């Protein structure tokens, strides 16, 4: 690899020249940091300035760029497209000039100059410590997609994968494809005018899948084990006594749902007591068979009561709403009204939930005579002429009423079939969680065989902005396995999951990361001889990327890695690093800050800020010209999870007086893009007082705050109050050393 030659380019526009001694900065770059090329330009992002840089790349052999100008918020097309991965932007403008009021006088101006000089030094050393990532490659990469589950979600996913030119392998545990939908009669409207029941699409879909040469189907099959990582998954598929192994690039989990067990419902609903109380799925099968009859005596079922929310939204059963059952029950009401002479359908609802265009379907069912009643079933008894006598609380007529009906249909809710583990209960050290082979995928992952759950047994990780993301890279859940949903939405969801599954195999082929650091080519490596087998990295990785060998050494799976650096932060031995991000790099940046002697009475405060939320928020402070203490120095981190405690010690021993960590919100409503990063940083920090005590320093010198991207207005107060608090303490005695 050719030797690194750093060019430093200091922009003097946007008021930088007026506020700063640029010549002194240039001198730091060339003389102190000994960068081979150091230049200034009055309008660096203009055509001439950019040409100057390009000329140096072409003529001077410059291959690493230190751009000292503005923040990453602006001019990315200009400054970040030179084709070299060795690049750092020193933000003299937004995070220095714009947050300092130099009209206050000479001292303020000097403080700003010191700040700019420090940032330039930090950038220089960062670039010196930075290497170009060498993308992870493996000859065995597969682009095939495994689809687990052969219901409508799985079949759709497989069909879409194949239609995009990729191969899919479908594994279905039962003998036939089709899943739950195959047991259904018709489906709710998906097309305008949203009034007409549609034919069940499942048989057509099965035929399409079976006729597609790019799709291989295993029925009667389960997954015995899933080893490996995206691009390199080796999946053992068990069919009777036969076990086949398939190498796939990614996995879509479409195992669908189980219905909540109606026999667990309150006895007052009468399930199991009378055969005329049935679940909505049982009713569906009756309609499909053309047998809308009372099970008790075979007489036609003319009056049917549908009880929506049979266990859903109930702390004793399912706490959530199943999303689709209102529409589903309306569909079934229409079976009664369309198929039965003198049919009558009653919908006992809590909240009628027919979102979007389904409101029109609700109207249609009322038009056909479906009767809505807000209320609850109180008691189910035998009817006078067979069938049922159902006592209800009628909230609209405000009283108890008794309905004589032929059938009571309970719209039971959906439970995900993906075995999940609660992420808040990490497995005990040295043990693999969920030893039972019950899991769908039987992942051979250090952190357990199952998918980490978000809530209520659903396996995604971030269900607003990035709903497909799970905590197992390259494994996407779709359909009701991911979240309760109806058929139309399941088809959409499976199509989206197919895209994600294709996207990950394409990223893996390039050696690149997927969300949230899409395209990042770096990945962690470790120095085996330094490892003490403490297992913190393998336990803490939010994505389960690291396995262990027999001796407890970490086994990195680069294609599972999301490049957050949590392993690097966790490692007490400082032996995990990325080509362009390491403990040493940040530690060196800390040491590069020039700490004034104690009698200057100018404290230094280090801020570690997460690049996802805190850094943009700090950029906003600049944009709004907020005033920050001149004593702070900011270092961006990929994620708070990558924060290694040694930096605290480094900073303290370098003479910093206070340290602030700015991470994302954690807890139930976490905003950490790497799920656990900021939470882990907080846990680590709780141990920092030991370090400080050893140094005989107050633990209040280190503070962690949760910063939201919109906190620009609060940040000056947060930072300046901390700076004042630090200022009121004795300065760090280690300054003298």
């Amino acid at each position: 690899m050719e030797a690194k030659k750093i060019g430093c380019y200091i922009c003097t526009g946007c008021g930088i020249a007026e506020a700063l001694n640029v010549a002194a900065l240039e001198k730091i770059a060339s003389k102190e940091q000994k960068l081979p090329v150091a230049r200034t330009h009055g309008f660096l992002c203009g055509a001439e300035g950019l040409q100057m840089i390009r000329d140096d790349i072409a003529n001077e052999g410059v291959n690493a760029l230190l751009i000292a100008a503005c923040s990453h918020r602006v001019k990315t097309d200009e400054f970040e497209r030179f084709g070299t991965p060795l690049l750092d932007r020193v933000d003299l403008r937004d995070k220095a000039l714009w947050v300092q009021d130099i009209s206050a006088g000479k001292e303020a101006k000097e403080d700003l100059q010191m700040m700019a000089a420090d940032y330039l030094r930090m950038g220089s050393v960062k670039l010196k410590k930075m290497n170009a990532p060498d993308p992870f490659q493996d000859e065995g990469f597969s682009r095939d997609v495994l689809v687990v589950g052969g219901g409508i979600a799985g079949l759709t996913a497989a069909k879409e994968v194949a239609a995009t030119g990729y191969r899919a392998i479908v594994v279905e545990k039962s003998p036939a494809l089709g899943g739950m939908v195959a047991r259904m009669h018709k489906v709710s409207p998906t097309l305008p005018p949203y009034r007409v029941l549609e034919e069940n699409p499942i048989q057509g879909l099965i035929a399409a899948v079976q006729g597609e040469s790019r799709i291989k189907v295993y029925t009667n099959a389960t997954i015995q084990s899933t080893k490996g990582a995206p691009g390199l998954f080796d999946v053992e598929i068990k069919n009777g006594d036969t076990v086949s192994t398939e190498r796939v690039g990614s996995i879509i989990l479409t195992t669908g749902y189980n219905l909540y067990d109606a026999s667990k419902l309150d006895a007052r609903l009468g399930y199991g007591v009378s055969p005329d109380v049935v679940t909505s799925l049982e009713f569906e099968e009756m309609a499909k068979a053309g047998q809308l009859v009372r099970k008790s005596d075979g007489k036609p079922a003319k009056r049917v009561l549908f009880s929506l929310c049979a266990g859903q939204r109930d702390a004793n059963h399912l706490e959530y709403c199943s999303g689709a059952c209102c529409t589903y029950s309306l569909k079934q009401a229409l079976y009664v009204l369309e198929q039965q002479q003198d049919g009558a359908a009653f919908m006992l609802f809590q909240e009628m939930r027919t979102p979007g265009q389904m409101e029109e379907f609700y109207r249609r069912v009322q038009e056909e005579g479906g009767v809505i009643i807000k209320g609850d079933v109180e008691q189910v008894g035998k009817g006078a002429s067979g069938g049922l006598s159902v006592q209800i609380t009628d909230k609209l007529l405000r009283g108890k009423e008794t309905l004589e009906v032929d059938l009571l249909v309970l719209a039971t809710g959906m439970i995900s079939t993906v075995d999940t583990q609660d992420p808040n209960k990490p497995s005990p050290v040295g043990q693999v969680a969920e030893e039972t082979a019950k899991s769908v995928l039987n992942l051979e992952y250090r952190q357990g065989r199952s998918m980490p759950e978000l809530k209520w047994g659903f396996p995604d990780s971030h269900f607003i902005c990035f709903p497909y993301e799970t905590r197992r890279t390259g494994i996407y859940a779709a359909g009701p396995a991911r979240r309760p949903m109806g058929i139309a939405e399941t088809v959409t969801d499976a199509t989206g999951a197919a895209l994600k599954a294709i996207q990950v195999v394409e990223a893996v082929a390039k050696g690149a990361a997927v969300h949230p650091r899409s395209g990042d080519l770096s990945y962690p490596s470790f120095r085996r001889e330094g490892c003490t087998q403490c297992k913190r990295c393998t336990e803490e990785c939010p994505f389960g990327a690291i396995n262990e060998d027999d001796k407890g050494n970490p086994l990195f799976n680069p294609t599972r890695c999301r490049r957050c650096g949590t392993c690097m932060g966790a490692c007490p031995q400082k032996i995990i690093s990325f080509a362009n991000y390491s403990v040493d790099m940040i530690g060196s940046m800390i040491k590069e800050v020039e700490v004034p002697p104690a009698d200057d009475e100018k404290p230094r405060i280090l801020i570690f800020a997460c690049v996802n939320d805190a850094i943009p928020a700090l950029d906003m402070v600049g944009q709004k010209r907020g005033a920050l203490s001149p004593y702070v120095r900011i270092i961006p981190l990929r994620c708070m999870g990558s924060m290694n405690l040694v930096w605290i010690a480094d900073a303290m021993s370098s003479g910093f007086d206070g340290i602030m960590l700015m991470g994302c919100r954690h807890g139930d409503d976490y905003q950490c893009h790497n799920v656990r990063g900021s939470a882990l940083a907080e846990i680590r920090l709780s141990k920092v007082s030991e370090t400080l005590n050893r140094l005989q320093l107050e633990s209040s010198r280190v503070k962690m705050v949760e910063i939201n991207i919109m906190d620009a207005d609060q940040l000056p107060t947060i930072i300046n109050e901390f700076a004042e608090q630090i200022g009121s303490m004795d300065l760090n005695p280690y300054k003298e050393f």
Partner: protein
Amino acid sequence: MAYDLSFAQDVYKNSEMGHWIKMCKQCGVCAGSCPLGPHWEYSPRQLFQLVRGGKKEEVLKSSSMWMCTSCYNCIVRCPRGLPITHIVHGLARYASVKGYADPDQVTNRFATKIFWGNIVSTGRVGEALLTMRLYFVDGLASGIKRGLEMKDSALGMLMTKRLNPIPIRGKIKGYAGFTAMIAKAQELEAKREAGA
């Protein structure tokens, strides 16, 4: 038995605009829109659910439908587009025809007997006679009392030539045809109302 649909189905079929009752989603806008809302025993929304619930007696014996001032507020606000004013008028008529409505309910008596009788007797409204009939409906004594209460107003109307001192008005020229037309319409209406 609740939610026996036979009453509802008869209303859907035979009461004017009755089929719209199916479409109510129980939002309550009608009740809040009604100028005499607080005086309704059941708001329109409640009436509709009672119809669907098979509560025939409650609905038809209620005075609610007779509280409609025909202001049409509910009709223009109903999010489901129910012609509520007409439905309520239809229910009132239904209750009256089926003999459930209290014949002494003031509005029932006025609307079904006095007003209608007044207009079909000549082809046009005879305001003076209408007013007199209204006042004297409970007999002479109370009629005089009511008349006296309003005597200043009546006097004012008379003096400003807005009340005819001769209460009986003549019939329209085509009265015979008019009457035959009404009779035919009533005949068809009766058939329809009987569910024929």
